[in-house]
């Protein structure tokens, strides 16, 4: 049952991610990206990682994508405002993309299908266990990453402030 659900949702994930790239309108791209994130949420639920699922739901679908949409709506992009790319850039992009495909195909050929992996503790993704892991064995990385976020926040505030004083 859950394998079938996985294949169904995985197909949807790939389909929506392709639509993100192929959609002509940037707003449509963002909307497809939201759907892609929604399928990721379903994947997390299938893995019994409920906390991660709901955080993905809130942070990515609910906050970050709203900001994406917000910015795109403010810019109001359309065909006229799209910058024309020079042929040189197009050729470079085609070569880079081709190289990436070759690398990907090469690596896929080298990999064999892994044995099914079973978690020692299937309830690892529940809030309680995750919290104990984060604040126990992984306390230092956790605190360091929160410092990193704090630094980014302070940086953003300083940048915003600077603009403000120059205008005034």
């Amino acid at each position, binding site marked *: 049952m859950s394998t079938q659900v996985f294949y169904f949702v995985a197909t949807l994930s790939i389909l929506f991610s392709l639509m993100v790239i192929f959609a002509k309108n940037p707003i449509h791209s963002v909307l497809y990206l939201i759907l892609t994130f929604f399928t990721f949420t379903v994947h997390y639920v299938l893995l019994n990682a409920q906390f991660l699922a709901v955080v993905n739901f809130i942070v990515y679908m609910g906050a970050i994508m*709203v900001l994406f949409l917000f910015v795109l709506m403010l810019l109001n992009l359309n065909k006229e405002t799209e910058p024309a790319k020079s042929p040189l850039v197009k050729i470079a992009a085609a070569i880079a993309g081709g190289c990436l495909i070759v690398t990907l195909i090469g690596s896929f050929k080298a990999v064999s299908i892994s044995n099914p992996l079973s978690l020692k503790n299937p309830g690892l993704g529940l809030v309680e266990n995750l919290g104990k892991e984060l604040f126990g064995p992984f306390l230092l990385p956790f605190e360091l990453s929160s410092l990193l976020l704090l630094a980014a926040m302070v940086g953003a505030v300083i940048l915003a402030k600077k603009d403000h004083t120059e205008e005034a």
Partner: protein
Amino acid sequence: MDAAFVIEKFILVAVIFGVSLLIAMYSTYAERKVAAFLQDRLGPDRAGPFGILQPLADGVKMFMKEEIVPATSNKWLFMVGPGLAMLTACIASAVIPWGSPIAIGDRVIPLQVTDINVGVLYIFGVVSLGVYGVMIGGWASNNKYSLLSAIRAASQNISYEIAMGLSIIALLLMTNTLSLKEIVEQQHGWHWNVLYQPVGFLIFMICAFAETNRAPFDLPECETELIGGYHTEYSSMKLGFYLFAEYINMFISSAVMATLYWGGYNYPGMDYVAAHLGATWAPLIGTGVFFLKIFAFIFFFMWVRWTIPRFRYDQLMNLGWKALIPLAIANIIVTGVVIAIIEKF
């Protein structure tokens, strides 16, 4: 998963959905009556006795109106917008415990559709999705006022979500659980969380007003600046869905506030009632009490709407970022310190 379980859940979902719609319908009537009361008028009194058939008349009017889709709009997304607003308004009710488990014959039926162990976060996630209906509808209308309204809705929603999340953290420090069922069970009798978290409740309530786009935070539909805001181009039942979604949101957020802070279906003396009425009727009384609390909140929503004028946009942002967020963080710190002291001694 036996058939009885499926039928039981199906009935529960259907009843909750029906009740949500009914309450949303009569909220429109109540809104007009409360407005009339506060402004010393009569309000609607033509359709039926005291005008109680007014919501039906309004509904029929909405359905019968001509539907206009602007020629330059994005047709598909124009249609998705109101649907999404309605969907996100309805799905939040799945994790709210409407009453303690009720015994019918031999079966004990929980009055909650699902008790997921991240219930609080689920509500929070659904709330954060709510803005998409407004944003997509506003953008798809291809009208600059609608677009401005969509952008306002997005920034307002994001800003107040932060304070809302922080106010909940202080509550979770005390409850040690994310399951709404357990949070309600902990508030047995009169041990309501609002007694221990008054500041958190205040912040949560203000944010709930902002998240449901209710006055004084209804800037996305500010008619003096933006005509009708995101639903300027909408007509007929699509407009009806947007208005309806707002009332359902109000009902659900009242239910969430009552659950998290005002004890849900608990009330003083519930043990006495439970001992005398048995396992079938006592839970029903609890549910009745819960709905009384919800109605009190809905009345409060309306009272505020007709009392306090709309904020200016910069006031809205200042309140959110410079008052509520620092206050919520201070609340978390104080709560944490107090809990640490209590546990130590």
